[in-house]
């Protein structure tokens, strides 16, 4: 990935990031291009979903009732907790405690794996009760959650890169750790929207 920039060097020196200070870009511009672009594309998916939902509200609502909202809530909590761990790990890395940062990143990654496992279980439940892509709501459900799962998997790889970075004392680049965290929070953010629009909206 990118070379460490001057920003990260300053931060690695222990300069505080004060509340309200408006100069610090977490990660780097390249990652934010990715995140903003991803948000734009997912935003388009969500709006297209809402358009199709508006065309057949009853059918969508009836299909929505077959989702297990408890699993959805549990999965949301898992992913939120995972985000918390990763956010804490960035703080630990900045305050010069890489061991703690690595442990927190592992915890965040473990929650990510748990999320994928729960999601796979949920998919198998839905598929076993005969809800396939033949139904329009469920085709959205499988595609949106599937693409999101792809992002989770990619996020797990990126967290692995962060750990690798934290482990090497010679070239510990905070930007890279921040990039990974930014991406991981975006995965969390997208899930929050999916949860609201697929599970809860009426």
């Amino acid at each position, binding site marked *: 990935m990118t070379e460490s920039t001057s920003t990260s060097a300053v931060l690695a020196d*222990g300069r*505080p*990031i*004060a*509340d*309200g*200070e*408006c*100069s*610090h*870009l*977490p990660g780097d511009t390249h990652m*934010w291009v990715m995140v*903003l672009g991803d*948000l*734009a594309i997912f*935003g388009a998916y969500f*709006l297209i979903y*809402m*358009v199709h*939902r*508006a065309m057949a*509200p*009853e059918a969508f*609502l009836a299909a*929505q*009732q*077959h*989702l*297990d*909202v*408890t699993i*959805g*809530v549990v999965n949301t*909590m898992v992913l*939120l*907790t995972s*985000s*918390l761990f990763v*956010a*804490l790990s960035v*703080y630990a890395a*900045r*305050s010069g405690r890489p061991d703690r940062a690595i442990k927190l990143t592992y915890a965040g990654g473990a929650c990510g794996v748990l999320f994928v496992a729960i999601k796979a279980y949920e998919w198998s439940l839905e598929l076993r009760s005969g809800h396939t892509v033949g139904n329009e709501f469920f085709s959205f459900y499988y595609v949106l959650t599937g693409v999101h799962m792809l992002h989770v998997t990619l996020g797990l790889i990126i967290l692995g890169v962060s750990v690798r970075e934290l482990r090497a004392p010679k070239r510990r680049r905070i930007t890279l750790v*921040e990039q990974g*965290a*930014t991406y991981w*929070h*975006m995965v*969390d*953010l997208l899930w*929050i*929207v999916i*949860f*609201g*629009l697929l*599970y*809860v*909206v*009426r």
Partner: protein
Amino acid sequence: MTTSATSHSGLRGITIAWIVLCVLTIGSWWLSPAHTGVPAVPSLPITVAVVVLGLIKSRLIIRYFMEVRSAPRWLRLATDCWLVALWAGTLIIYLY
């Protein structure tokens, strides 16, 4: 060390954000159409509530977890524009 003070307040920020997010998530469990047993009917108040809750939750993640709170102005504007476009769009399409 000044670092610890500010970093402490940042830590408190994300922990509070996490608690609020979890509470709101459990709150939306009540709103869901999935577990009522009877066929659900479309409901404008619940949808508005979902949109408002979604807006609050996603903004908390962006501002606190993603640290956009202390990011340059263009990024704060860009993310806020996305939030407004998404949730306002959702509501408008629903109402339309």
